[in-house]
């Protein structure tokens, strides 16, 4: 309990403060960007990209170990993760082009190939005569504890950069998500905007790997956005609200897992986000279950 309070009140020392801040910044960026990912129908591509980071993480580790660099360097691992995730996203596009394969089948295929290759490469990594292999598994389920301040700062800056890009592109992205043909007809560079959205999604995914892990990183893009959608009918409210929910989830989740180190951070963060979603599902003003039931009852009484 004391550890939890310490983590949540940023009083656990400089390192813990920076880590909590990095997690919260990641949650903010993931929540805000997640709205556009969701409205553009890209949630499953985000998941495919996340699973396709594993081979990149392993390859970066192997490369570093072979060349005698530090195989636990976060920028290096993030670079590798981003490279194979980008390949995965491109593969989904290529497989689904011209209706060759349904979108969902293409994504399932990329998840299978990406994660399968990654797990196979993990066993290669285990056999390498260097230390630090255990660190890699924290990228699967997430482990905020033991993150260095430098790593947390890197995550923080990546998240801030992604947030700025979302703020600048807010309106073009909104029009793209609502009506891509209209957006193209008035001269918006639809192809580039979609690429920017995918690029930001990759950046946020990679930023979240260390703390949340690749299996659950998509949760922080989808769940806060879905929660915010239940609570509001305005995109200009939904995006900041989803960011706030993401930040709170990441910060509380990181605190919880710091208090109970056996719990992977990814799980606690996702569970906090899902608890908030459940609250909104029940009590959201217009779309909530309770509001819906009350409305139905009133209508029935009026009709009777």
């Amino acid at each position, binding site marked *: 309990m004391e550890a939890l309070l310490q983590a949540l009140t940023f009083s656990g020392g400089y390192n813990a403060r920076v880590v909590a801040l990095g997690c919260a910044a990641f949650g903010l960026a993931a929540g805000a960007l997640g709205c556009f990912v969701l*409205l553009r129908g890209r949630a499953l591509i985000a998941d495919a990209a996340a699973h396709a980071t594993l081979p990149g993480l392993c390859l970066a580790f192997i490369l570093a170990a072979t060349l005698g660099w530090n195989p636990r360097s976060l920028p290096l691992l993030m670079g590798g993760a981003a490279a194979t995730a980008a390949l995965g996203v491109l593969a989904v596009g290529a497989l689904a082009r*011209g*209706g060759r394969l349904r979108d969902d089948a293409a994504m399932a295929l990329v998840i299978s190939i990406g994660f399968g290759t990654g797990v196979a490469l993990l066993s290669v990594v285990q056999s390498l005569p260097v230390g630090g292999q255990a660190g890699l598994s924290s990228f699967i389920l997430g482990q905020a504890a033991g993150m260095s301040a430098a790593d947390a700062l890197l995550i923080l800056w990546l998240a801030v950069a992604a947030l700025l890009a979302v703020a*600048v592109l807010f*309106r*073009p992205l*909104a*029009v793209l*998500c*609502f*009506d891509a*043909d*209209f957006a*193209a*007809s*008035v*001269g*918006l560079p639809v192809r580039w905007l979609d690429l920017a959205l995918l690029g930001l999604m990759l950046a946020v995914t990679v930023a979240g790997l260390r703390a949340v892990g690749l299996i659950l990183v998509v949760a922080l893009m989808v769940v806060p956005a879905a929660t915010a*959608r239940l609570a*509001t*009918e*305005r*995109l200009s409210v*939904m995006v900041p609200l989803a960011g706030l929910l993401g930040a709170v989830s990441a910060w509380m989740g990181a605190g919880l897992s710091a208090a109970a180190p056996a719990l992977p951070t990814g799980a606690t963060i996702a569970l906090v986000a899902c608890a908030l979603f459940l609250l909104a599902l029940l009590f959201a003003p217009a779309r909530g279950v309770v509001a819906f039931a009350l409305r139905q009852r009133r209508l029935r009484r009026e009709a009777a």
Partner: protein
Amino acid sequence: MSPTPSALELRNLSVAYREAPVLQGVSWRAPQSGLTAIVGPNGAGKSTLLKAALELVPRLSGEVRFFGQELRQARRRIGYLPQRASVDWDFPATVLQVASMGRYPRVGWFLPLPRAERERARAALAEVGMADFAGRQIGQLSGGQQQRVFLARALALEADLYLMDEPFAGVDAATERAIIDVLHRLGRDGRAVIAVHHDLATAPQYFEHVCLLNREVVAAGPMEAVFTPENLSRTYGGRLSMLDEAALRPSSPLRQPLRAVP
């Protein structure tokens, strides 16, 4: 280049989805202004023609000119009204926000809309009879109201040429009336409207020109000269229903009472 360039000129336009060609060597000069219907059976490539002209789908071959210019130079003069069913109406936006999308191309995408611009979007909503719904969430609208909001967004573009994909699809009589009033106002103002239209009975009353399309242009020109039973049966390959044919006869009761449309 002719002295009065056509609003939309297609030269040998071909489009294919996967293997099957949808449009084959379509050449057509739309009039410089006024209302033109694109009429043809399902799968004739009517929507595809609009989309290919706007480069929303890739062309196999052919050239497109708007007022004698490339799309890139003429973009500001063109307004597109997509099919209503092509978007997600559960999107978190208000009626006024959707109409305002028609102003951003002129004022830029990165700053809040100035008050005067928002008033122009409001005026567009008023013209389609949706002013009272400005603050309404778009998901709460009926199909006809959605179509009016789409039309308001197009009007807010203040274009010289409008390309409309089935503006009357799935709307009630009152909305159809409201939409045709707006189209006729555009025509009187010297704008050009090219609309995909399905209803053969109303086509001659609503539109001055017609392009009969079935993968290629069967016939095109002034409505009276082109909209003949012979041309229509060539367009539809003899698949016209009795009711459609009855509507086409000059003395048809389906046709006469509606003739009073301005």
